[in-house]
């Protein structure tokens, strides 16, 4: 099948590549870019394991064609920590508050929570639960995920106040 040129920015780096138009963004990121942090859990946009940030919005990259990401700014889990490896407060909170068990949903969950806390820096528990309801976790019962997001929100607001 013929290939088309795609250009986008991924985790701050300009990317230019050839891809079959029917290629899904998640496959492009995982197979062409070797960014295997975002996972594929359902291919129907229900589980959220493939969540990435596209132009400032959380999207399920399993139901986005690579062509739809033409010219987009994309952030994946690999782009959330600082370049020196310092974890983002959301990542730190998931680790510290045991917000994961098997870890398969974690990159999508963190990428979503990272955007959620930019959309709503002081969410209630209910707002967190609805805000991540597009991301399935089968291990934890969500309890420590919610706790981790609450802790990250508190940490971020302290950091913001200090700035």
């Amino acid at each position, binding site marked *: *099948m013929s290939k088309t040129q795609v250009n986008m920015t991924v985790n701050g780096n300009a990317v230019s590549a050839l891809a*079959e138009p*029917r*290629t899904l963004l998640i*496959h492009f990121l*995982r*197979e062409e870019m070797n*960014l*295997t*942090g*975002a*996972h*594929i*859990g*359902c*291919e*129907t946009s*229900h*589980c959220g*394991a493939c969540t990435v940030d596209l132009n400032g919005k959380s999207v399920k990259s399993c139901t986005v064609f690579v062509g739809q990401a033409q010219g987009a700014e994309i952030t*994946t*889990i*690999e782009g*959330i*920590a600082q370049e020196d490896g310092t*974890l983002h407060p959301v*990542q*730190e909170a*998931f*680790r510290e508050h*045991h917000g*994961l*068990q*098997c*870890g*398969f*949903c*974690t*990159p999508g969950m*963190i990428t979503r929570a990272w955007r959620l806390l930019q959309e709503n820096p002081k969410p209630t*528990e*209910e707002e*967190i*639960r*609805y805000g*991540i*309801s*597009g*991301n*399935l*976790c*089968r*291990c*934890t*019962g*969500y*309890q*420590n*995920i*919610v706790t981790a997001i609450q802790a990250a929100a508190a940490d971020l607001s302290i950091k913001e106040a200090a700035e």
Partner: protein
Amino acid sequence: MALDDTRITGFKVVGTRPDRPDGLDKVTGRAKYGADATAPGMLFGAIVRSPHAHARILGIDTSRAEAMHEVKAVVTRADFAPGLTGENLNVLENVMAGEKALYDGHAVAAVAATTALAARDAARLVEVEYEILPHVTDVDAAMEEGAPVIRADAADGSVPEGMHPNVVRYHESGHGNVDEGFAEADLVIEEHFTTEATHQGYIEPHACLATLGADGKGDLWCSTQGHWIAQKTCAALLGLEQSALRVTASEIGGGFGGKTTVFIEPVALALSRKTSRPVKIVMSRSEVFRATGPTSSTSMDVRIGMKKDGTITAGQGVFRLQGGAFPGAPMEFTAMCAFAPYNLKHVHQVGYDVICNRPKQAAYRAPGSPMAAFAVESVIDELCNRLGLDPIEVRLKNGSKEGTKASFGPTWDRIGLIETLEAARDHPHYSAPLNEGEGRGVSCGFWFNHAGETSVTLALSEDGTVQLMVGTPDIGGSRASMAIMAAEELGVPYDRVRVTVADTASLGYNDVSHGSRVTYASGLATIQAARDTIRKLCGRAAAKWGIDPEAVEWRDGCAVPSGPNAGEFDPMPIADIAARMGRTGGPIVGHYEVTPEGAGVSFATHIVDAAVDRETGATEVSRYTVVQDAGKAIHPSYVEGQYQGGAAQGIGWALNEEYVYGDDGRLQNPGFLDYRIPVASDLPMIDTVIVEVPNPGHPYGVRGVGETSICPPLAAIANAVSNAAGVRMRDLPMRPARVLEALQDRTGE
């Protein structure tokens, strides 16, 4: 391995809550799961699946697929080992159909191509000619006279004469005389219950990367709960020597029992053998639903007699489970778990394993037990309601304790059911007032727990740090628990122990990470391997000091002279001994191999409040408390995580999750849209209470915790909903339409 009473108090590391060693990799996306591996020259496999529930395969035409230039190989049943018997034959039949397709989604062929998209295209070009046969997907219908015979010779010798050939195994157990017991009762209630099949619902689909050369030597990377069973089974299915196939377990994205067997792994190996190239296969979600093991669906009858004072006089149950097109539905576990929490003079239980045109069931967290608890604990709840008795007091009155003869034979050792009931009774949740429209339910649950073959190696590095190799894939934070136990024994900090899940070439055989066995069995072996290491460390110190090794003790990470030599030499730290080990006798390595006895059974009591919307029939779980005996919690946060995870899965099973088959025998809901697992906004915070009644069969008293947590929820939620709605719910899931119908039947609307 007896309980080590000297260790019960004074733990330094056990019971703390350190960060998990795999945490950084998992929050940064670095952790490598099944689908994350690649190899030079790698091909992608795709599987051709039957669209029919039951069909004879008349022919497979692969020519159009093979004509695609991207396609490198097509395999069918002819590419696997002939002449298999027993469970190996069942697994092969399931992995690749022989003469008949036995369920919607059954694999019939597979292709390997240079890209994943081309492989999918090619799979659609494989033409299979079918003769469609009558099918049956319901357990009761499959037992009826005239039901289609799925596999004529599948029944074993346990099945009584005159049963339909779809009944393939039979179980009966109990003691006393139930008729006598029912005659003593003031009230006897008998009810019929059903539950639908549910899927484990791990978010990571099955994935593997296989390499197999013409010399019969291979490597397999896969997402699995047990790589030795994968090695053994794949070797059999492909006709290989077991040791010629090295299997490495990837990071695993959830299993819950569903990754204790193989599905795509033998197919990827067959495609690799045919092409001499590495082959990767990753399942889609719909393949996971259609063709990997869900749990059994059930049809159950339970009868219980009770006196006015709450004494249970007799219990009887008949449990019919379908496990797909193959023997193995865990009906004996259902039967054995049903009355296990209770001390009964008269008890009798029967189980039927029935085959249907559905995928081969696989284990799901305490296989068979949650359904049993649903039926039995619902009848007990109804008896309590009608006799005006408190459900926890009744359970305390009849509860099993040390010395009780269990409903299925053995006499209980030290167990913690009563302690969980007392803690539940005393928990603020149990006495909290209910809101308008809410009902409260309680239930007990039981699981056996398993031990299994286990092998562990602990190697000291020259800087005094520790490498611990275990063979049980980490499905619940076990690397943290193992590091805690090794650190406790060796007297070194937790973060000096690096735990690796070793491949099949690096350790002796290890049973699967199932049966809630890992913290118990790999933990026990870790403790013993550490003690083996300590003996060697003490020996090196004794040689240096020129004293008897027996006169050296290990304290706080140092060899210390004791007895007549006490105080004679300065303590020798582990790092000093490690730095010199090359010159003092060579590497210091401890190991332990065992099939332990005494896994230690586990009980739990759950309390649930649920509100039922009378307009829609929708249920909201408003409060949930889990009380469970852990024996000894090594990492309490991970014990709590198991409790919460089990409860959440149970909530899904009770309220929403079900396999729905159409009249055509096809699965109607093979995706997360229509097979709805709980999302964050469906659940409340789940409170947990860890009860610790030490297991006499583990040095620290550990009992497995992973599975018991899913045993009580179906019943506890059904009791809460029934009490809220004022009508007994006997069929799961309690989806809104079903609850609404029950409400309307009750009020005559």
